[in-house]
């Protein structure tokens, strides 16, 4: 992603007077999670149903069945508000899964590189350099663009570069912890490397990793929306904010609400996650990728 570098770095300051600054974004994020989990249970929406007689209704207009569409309808007569709610589920699901994949893969790779050093480390470093020779979104587009659309393809495409920052941080933590005397002691006592890594070294990475995962979540949600805006990655039957924004692009002059509403939902979520991530990063100071 183009926004990666500054998002994560340059945050060390302004960490004072911030004890409570994470509260508001945390509440907002909580709301989104709630909507993602419970919203679909409360609001019935079937993307397959296309009540054409209701197409392009403005927000608040009455439908043919006598109901109202809070945020209007799209070009096929489907409720935009419901698409915003169901889109939250898609975004949160993809965001969490991708971050989980990246976290596990990244930490594993980073710890291995940091612990064994030597040629393993050099090869992995080189691999990272190669992946970073492309703008991240470009690699995701090429990968997601060539396979049959599905949830897993988009998760794979976003994970291809997403693990790097985790790996980097895990590696640097391991490198520094590795030299502490009690690790040496444990090693001399014959504790096996895997146990050493898992039991004694990894716990040091938890705090910074949580902060980084938060920021990564924001990046993933943004990238997923970007891909589905381009019509890449997700199957036609899924509901996603990026797709809805793209569907509305043709109707900007006549039905602005189709693009505006889901984009706003997306922006508020990413801004909140960004602010929370900032607070967490300030608290766990270490989370910097470059």
């Amino acid at each position: 992603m183009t926004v990666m570098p500054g998002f994560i770095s340059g945050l060390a300051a302004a960490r004072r007077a911030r004890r409570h600054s994470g509260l508001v974004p945390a509440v907002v994020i909580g709301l989104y999670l709630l909507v993602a989990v419970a919203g679909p249970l409360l609001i019935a929406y079937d993307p397959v149903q296309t009540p054409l007689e209701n197409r392009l209704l403005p927000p608040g207009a009455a439908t043919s069945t006598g109901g109202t569409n809070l945020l209007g309808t799209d070009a096929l007569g489907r409720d935009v508000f419901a698409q915003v709610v169901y889109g939250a589920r898609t975004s949160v699901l993809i965001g969490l899964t991708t971050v989980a994949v990246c976290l596990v893969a990244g930490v594993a790779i980073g710890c291995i590189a940091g612990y064994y050093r030597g040629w393993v480390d050099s090869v992995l470093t080189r691999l990272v350099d190669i992946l970073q020779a492309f703008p991240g979104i470009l690699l995701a587009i090429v990968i997601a663009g060539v396979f049959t659309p599905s949830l897993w393809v988009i998760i794979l495409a976003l994970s291809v570069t997403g693990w790097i920052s985790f790996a980097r941080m895990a590696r640097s933590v391991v490198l520094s912890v590795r030299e502490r005397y009690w690790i040496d002691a444990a090693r001399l006592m014959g504790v096996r490397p895997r146990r050493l890594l898992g039991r004694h070294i990894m716990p040091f990475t938890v705090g910074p990793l949580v902060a980084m995962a938060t920021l990564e979540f924001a990046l993933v949600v943004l990238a997923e929306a970007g891909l589905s805006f381009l019509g890449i990655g997700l199957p036609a039957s899924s509901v996603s904010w990026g797709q809805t924004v793209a569907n509305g692009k043709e109707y900007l002059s006549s039905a602005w609400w189709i693009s505006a509403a889901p984009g706003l939902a997306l922006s508020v979520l990413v801004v909140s996650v960004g602010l929370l991530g900032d607070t967490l990063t300030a608290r766990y100071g270490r989370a910097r990728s470059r």
Partner: protein
Amino acid sequence: MLTLVIRRLLAGVIVLWGAATLVFLIVRVVPGDPATVLLGPDAEPGQIAAMRAQLGLDRPLLLQYWDYLGQALHLEFGDSYRLAASAMDAVLSRLPATIDLTLTSAVISVFAGLLLGSAAGIRAGSGQDRIVTTLTIVLQSFPTFWIGIMLILVFALGLRLLPTSGAQSLSSLVLPAVTLSFPFTAIVARVARSGIAEAMAEPYVQTALSKGLTPREVLTGHVLRNALIPVITVVGLQVGALLGGAVVVENVFAWPGLGTLIVESVGNRDYAVVQAATLTIAAIIVLLSLVADLLYAQLDPRIRAAS
């Protein structure tokens, strides 16, 4: 210094080779055959076989890879399967539009970013600083495609000041460049801020302040100069990232840039163009980061000494 240059150059070559291999593998692993696209659904099997032979796709993969590496060394990627041009020409014809967009947004971002960064860094920890820092997070979090659409809604469709999209005149450059500047400005502002805040804490600045110079005089006279080094580095890297990474914004504004070319070529299985475009971008990015590193080493005596 010389050893540093050589070492970095060597690393750059290895990275490019890896990138070339990666792209080669990706485009060949995927389903879909260029010969089928070219000949359409009515082609006979014999015709498809002949076309595959003509395109060189029937040869062993390793042989194709070898030729491809050889060609890439000469900046040659063969002919586009789709366009009546060589793949490299297709890339070069899109490069100017991409450069226009990227550099314009770079100029906007550097000005806006330095302004914001100075405002925050000059009084680190103040309310002003917190506001700017929060603002940068917000700027960076907005999805660019949505910003772009909202700008179209307001400035093109609402106020009718600027064209909605396309690349027919200079005014059509404004909206996409501004859109790209949102996250870009935030990045510059953050880097500038931390550089300035650091410099403001240095003893010589404190001395200058105690001598009665105003913070603004100190900033323009001493501090900004030092803070510019990391800013230049980050601008270089970001420009590289935008060469193909601006694809979403290009799509919103129908800007005929490199990213769009790649998306089109992936869909058409135009291997030659995908390879030429992605490697051109990779080469520029590697080069830019090399220059940024060397510049950094040149400017920062500590790094120079270490090498």
